[in-house]
Structures are given as structure tokens and as C-alpha cells.
């Protein structure tokens, strides 16, 4: 390779990089097309209204056509658990980021950062297992319910989303121009006033992106949620209800699903894909505004 002229090796490098990029794009396209194609039988036989907007989930394994496949319960389960997780993880994450960037002395900041990176590295199934043996009994003791349900799932999701939100928010705060803080302090603002009224608003777009990415992590989480949410097919009317999310329903049922049943599970995967795409588009919109600023 070294014997060839610069022009030739440049061409090969470009070709290799282009192949890598196309593989990624091709994969995403194929996955989307495959999932869409597999959901069509369900969309056709069950009907859009009954499939996406009905809470009647009663599959029939031996006679798939005779079952009912309304996934609204699980869409609601996904939204509820994600919302519950975000409500806790967002202030915690941004607070931790502010602490890391503005308040902590260098050595403490480094230790806390390592801790958060370690937290991000724990496999979701391990977190789910801890949820199962520690969190669920604790919730059962405190609330008198079985312990399984939306609350346990939200808490587990907080642990999964927190590192993402914290690290990204900390990055955003670090990238703010130092002059911003200096100007505020020079005007006589206290530390909290600086953080609250100057830095956080300035970092708004980056923080939003951090939260959206954390939300994406929470929506897609399967293993950890499946171990603590109860996998019931009941509509969650309270935070203590046992229910299922789109992800846990797919992983619990795909074992022997056939015919329309299997297609309905693919339709759930389609909904997840659409939600993920919406989140990514949201991020693009937010960051476009940020670049302009």
C-alpha cells in the first residue's frame, strides 16, 4: 500500500469508509422494511383501529385468527413508565451534571464521573435482577402491593437513563463559554443565581438533547423492565398497577407466536421504531436551532 501514490490510497480509503456507512444505512432500511412487511397481516386482518387503539389483548396461540390484538395498553405502559422515569431522572441527571461541572472540586468530580460511567456500563439484565430481588420487595413492604408494576419499572429505568442524561448534560455545560459565568459573577450574582438564571438557560438545547436521548434509552429498555413490571395485560390505571410495555410484550410472547399473533408483535415493534424515529427527528430539530444560535 505504501508503494502506491497518495491519490490511489485516498480512493481506497474513501471506498472502504463509504461501504461501512452504506452498510449501516442499508441495515436500518432493511430492518424497517422487514418489520413493516411482517406487520402488514396484522394491520390488514385486525384493522388499524383494533390493533393500535384497542386495549383488548387476548391472543389465541392455537388459533391466531380468533384472538384479539389491541396494543393500546402496552403503548400506554411504555409512555407511563418512560414518563415516570423521566420525571425523576431529569432533575437528578441535570443536577448531577451541574454538580460535576460547577460545584465539585476536581478530584471529587473525577470520582463521581467514574461512578456514573460504571453505572452506564452495568448490563440491563443485572439492573433488572437487582430490581427483582431488592426493589420489588421494598416496594411491596412500603405500599402493600405485590411490588411489581409501573413504579418498579420506572425506578429501574431511572438507573438506565441517568448516566446518559448526566454525561451529556455535563458535556453541554462544559462547552458553554467560560465568559458567560464570569460575566454573571462579575455582575454580583450568587452561584445559584448564575447556575439557575444564566448557565442552565444557555445550555437549554443541549440539555434537551440529553433528556431526549435518555428517553430513547428508557423507551427501548426490555430486560430490566420485564423482570419487574409484572407483564400483566391490564391497563395501568395507577402507578402501582402491574402492566406491560411494548418491549416486554414482544420479548414475553415471541416464543410461540404464529400467524396474526406474530404479526401483531411485529406491529408493536413498528410502533417502537416510529417512536424512536420521532425522537431522533426531535433531536435534529432542536440541534438545528442550536447551530443557528
Amino acid at each position, binding site marked *: 500500500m505504501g508503494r502506491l501514490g497518495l491519490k490511489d490510497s485516498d480512493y481506497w480509503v474513501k471506498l472502504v469508509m463509504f461501504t461501512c456507512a452504506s452498510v449501516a444505512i442499508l441495515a436500518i432500511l432493511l430492518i424497517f422494511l422487514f418489520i413493516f412487511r411482517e406487520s402488514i397481516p396484522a394491520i390488514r386482518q385486525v384493522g388499524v383501529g383494533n390493533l393500535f387503539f384497542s386495549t383488548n389483548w387476548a391472543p389465541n396461540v392455537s388459533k391466531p385468527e*380468533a384472538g384479539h390484538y389491541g396494543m393500546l395498553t402496552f403503548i400506554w405502559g411504555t409512555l407511563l413508565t418512560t414518563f415516570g422515569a423521566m420525571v425523576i431522572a431529569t432533575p437528578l441527571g441535570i443536577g448531577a451534571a451541574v454538580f460535576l461541572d460547577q460545584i465539585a472540586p476536581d478530584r471529587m468530580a473525577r470520582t463521581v464521573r467514574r461512578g456514573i460511567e460504571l453505572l452506564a456500563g452495568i448490563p440491563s439484565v443485572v439492573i433488572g435482577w437487582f430490581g427483582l430481588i431488592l426493589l420489588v420487595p421494598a416496594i411491596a413492604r412500603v405500599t402493600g402491593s405485590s411490588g411489581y408494576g409501573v413504579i418498579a419499572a420506572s425506578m429501574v429505568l431511572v438507573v438506565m437513563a441517568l448516566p446518559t442524561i448526566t454525561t451529556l448534560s455535563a458535556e453541554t455545560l462544559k462547552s458553554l463559554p467560560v465568559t458567560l459565568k464570569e460575566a454573571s459573577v462579575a455582575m454580583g450574582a450568587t452561584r445559584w443565581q448564575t447556575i439557575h438564571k444564566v448557565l442552565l438557560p444557555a445550555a437549554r438545547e443541549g440539555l434537551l438533547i440529553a433528556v431526549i436521548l435518555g428517553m430513547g434509552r428508557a423507551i427501548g429498555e426490555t430486560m430490566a423492565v420485564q423482570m419487574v413490571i409484572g*407483564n*400483566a395485560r*391490564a391497563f395501568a390505571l395507577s402507578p402501582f398497577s402491574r402492566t*406491560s410495555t411494548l418491549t416486554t410484550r414482544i420479548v414475553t410472547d415471541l416464543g410461540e*407466536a404464529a400467524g396474526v399473533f406474530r404479526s401483531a408483535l411485529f406491529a408493536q415493534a413498528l410502533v417502537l421504531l416510529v417512536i424512536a424515529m420521532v425522537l431522533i427527528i426531535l433531536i435534529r430539530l432542536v440541534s438545528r436551532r442550536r447551530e443557528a444560535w
Partner: protein
Amino acid sequence: MRKWIAIGLGVLIALWVALSAGCASGSKLQGKTDTAIHGQVKTAGSTTVLPLAQEAAVEFTDINRNANVEVQGGGSSAGITQLKERVIDVANSSRDLQPGENNGTLVDHKIAFDIIAVVVNPSNPVKNLTKEQAKAIFTGKITNWREVGGPDEPIVVVIRDQASGTREVFDQRVLGSTSDKPVQCVASAIEQASNGVVREVVASTEAGIGYLSHGYVNKTVRPVNLDSAPPDIENASSGRYPLARYLHMFTRGQPVGAVKSYIDFVLSQKFQVEVVRRAGYIPIREVFKQ
């Protein structure tokens, strides 16, 4: 640079060859290999029996190098149909033949016995349930333990996932569910994907009730009697305990050659004790001893 790439590739290939050679024999039962038995055995059917059949196939072909066993799923009904159409040699089934299904040629080999125990938390004083009570609890008509003689606590029902053969038997025998008119369990029931996890949930939930394969019952959960019959082999094989079934392998006529050896292997003491029992089922000889 090219030299290093070549060396790297060479090491990788050598590693791959070494690993695949080492992984070739994964047999749990160490035995002498036999080359006398040869031929093909095609099996298919119940997904409940599938893990047993697959393990048997692996170990049988490890010992009998000239034999080849194919195992597929598809369900008990599909397996029996394929057997009658001469597509396969052995049909695995988790249910008996329905009346009219035997065209006169099918021979039944019972290979294991499956008792499903309804279990509650050890702190629960309830010791017996009638079938109607059990059905009412699991379908959500009875929601509090005090309605069946227990403490004043809402019942937490634990069931298995849709793919489970255990759930299939339970739904059919206790709920009266059929494929035309399925009966759903209560919507708030906790659904778990294995016997072991069901046991853990019931063990750690005081108001819990669930069902599992007999082999999974241990001190952390307590089985209840159904219609005053305890879930043991004697009551189950006599029919007094309603939640039990045989696991079958059907053949066309009496088996010969490789098929016969395969069935004999599945019924052998070693396989029954080491594999069937570990899967949570009851070795067939223990039933016939009754």
C-alpha cells in the same frame, strides 16, 4: 504490514479450528461409541417435549455415530399428522391421541409424566382448593384470599407465558379453555417466562398463587391440594389429581432399527434420571411402579 496481517489471520484460523474440534463432542453421558446402529430418525411435534427430544438426539448420535436424528417442533397436532402421513418416524406429543386420531397403526410410548402443582406462599394457610375455586381465582372472579378461607389480602396471580406447555395444560384442565373458546386469566396476572421465575415470585409474594411443573416444587413454595387430592404420583396417575399428563412419543407400528434404538434410549434409566428429571418431569418408570 502484510506479514503481520498474514500472521494474524493464521493465528485466528488455527484458533477457530482448535475451538471447533474441542466443541464437537458436548455429550453429557459419556459412553462407548457404537457404529452398529445406523439410519435416519425423523422426529417432530410438541414443543414441550422438544428440549427432551433434542437432548436425546444429541446424546444418541454421540454414542451411535452412524445414526442421524432430526428433531423439530411444530406442536403435538402437527407432529401426529406428519407421522400418519409418513413424513416423520416419531411424533412427540404432550397430549393423548384424540378419539379418531389413531388410524390403527399408531403406537404410544409414554416417555415422561408431568404433574403440574398449584403453589402458594408458605405463609398462606390455605391448603386445599376445589377446581371451581382455582378457576375462579385464576380468572379473577375471586380476588381476595378470605373468600377461600385465607387472610384478608388481594390475591396476586402468577401465570406462564403463551408459549408454555405448562400453561396450555393448566388452561385446558382448570380453566376449561379450548382453542375455539379460550378462557383468559385475570388481566392483572403476573406473566413470567419460566417455571423457576414463577416459583421465585410466589415464594417472595405472600399473597401469591401460581402453577409449576412438579419437579420445580421446593421448600420455598407450598403446593395446594386440588379437590382434596395432593399432587403426587399416585393421585395423579389414578386421575384423582386433575392436573397431570403423560409426554408421548408415537411411532407407526412397533419401531425397528434406529427408531427402536432411539426410543429405547429415551426410555433408558440413565436418560430418564439424568435428563427427564432435571427438566422437572417425572421419569416414566416411577409412574409404572405404582
